[in-house]
């Protein structure tokens, strides 16, 4: 349990998707104009990451890894399908996003209208595929760890987008040099926040 909490906290603060790896920057810049839209996409990203990372973990360990197919038949034990992982992961993500969209639309119409246009966008959000690829690279040993990592990364992304959206709303009242307005100043602030987040480095529970 302690290990899970450690992975969770680590993926929020130290390996933050935005401040440490710049994943999902495109949608981060696009939706951070107001807190409300930021919240919407942030929740959707957290939701999808929490689902796709464990699913891709199962896919990776049961089918794609070298020798992972041995449960099917012992003669498959030297089959290595890991070169297929990109296409499998992205297919799972695209399918999951579609599925999540349908389920949410059916059972939680209020949430659906809040997330609305953001759900389909998620299939091409780098942080989702990035979550799965990091899971593959770091080789988590249980599905619990993979889930904690996915959930933590999503929360980290949500945190980052909320923080920048709040700052950008206040930024309207300040005098920014014209050429830096909009995109430029957002980049700089993200950089400064990244430096602030680096102070979390080395935290261990």
């Amino acid at each position, binding site marked *: 349990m302690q290990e899970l909490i450690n992975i969770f906290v680590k993926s929020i603060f130290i390996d933050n998707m935005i401040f440490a790896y*710049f994943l999902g920057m495109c949608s981060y810049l696009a939706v951070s104009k107001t807190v409300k839209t930021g919240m919407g996409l942030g929740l959707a990203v957290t939701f999808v990451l929490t689902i796709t990372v464990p699913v891709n973990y199962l896919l990776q360990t049961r089918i794609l890894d070298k020798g992972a197919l041995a449960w099917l038949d012992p003669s498959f034990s030297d089959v290595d399908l890991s070169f297929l992982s990109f296409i499998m992961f*992205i*297919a799972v993500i695209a399918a999951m996003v579609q599925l999540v969209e349908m389920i949410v639309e059916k059972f939680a119409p209020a949430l659906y209208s809040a997330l609305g246009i953001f759900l389909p966008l998620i*299939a091409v959000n*780098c942080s*989702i595929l990035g979550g799965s690829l990091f899971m593959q690279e770091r080789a988590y040993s249980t599905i619990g760890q993979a889930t904690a990592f996915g959930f933590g990364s999503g929360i980290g992304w949500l945190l980052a987008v909320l923080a920048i959206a709040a700052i950008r709303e206040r930024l309207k009242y300040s005098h920014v040099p014209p*050429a830096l307005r*909009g995109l430029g100043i957002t*980049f700089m602030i993200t950089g400064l926040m990244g430096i602030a987040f680096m102070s979390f480095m080395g935290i261990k529970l």
Partner: protein
Amino acid sequence: METNKTKEALFSKKNRKLLSDPMNINNPITVQVLGICSALAITVKLKPAVVMSLSVIVVMALANVITSLMRNMIPNRIRIIVQLVVVATLVILVDQVLKAFVYDVSKQLSVFVGLIITNCIIMGRIEAFSLGNTPWKSFLDGIGNGASYGLILIVVSFFRELFGNGTLYDYPIIEKLGLYELGYHNNGMMLLPPMALIVVAVIIWWQRSKTPSLIEKD
């Protein structure tokens, strides 16, 4: 297919514009704000940045041509999945080539080669351009956008490697110039991830002061 009598030359003025526009007034990173995700994490050194740029150019040009050839066959509703499959296949090819020929760089790039799939610039150009244009034009558009994406990557990594590490393409240039004996020190901060954002911000600042038409209105 060619309705106008004079067949358009391969490198007509309009086609050349497809190549040159992305360099400045329609730059994918600083103006269209696409493809930033993977652009910044791999700019610590020039070598991975160059390899990454080449991979993106190859994937983009081919993906644009393939989707452009299929543009009349793809049903509108499932086009995103079709595009993702095309791009993912190309990225797998690039990844295998990198692993075979430049293994150390491929290790440094780690997950970011895979992330070319969701690089918004590729999906963005397919959606915005190649689904409505002929293969040759899409090819030029892919090369133009890929190259200008690479240009930003290389500029950023040039500054970060020079000031952060004192080398250029692993060549110890500062040491050879003898600046260390004069008391010069490398700025280790340039190697940290946040500095990539600040370098890009400075590039945007510079570009927009030169081209005032790009300045955003509130």
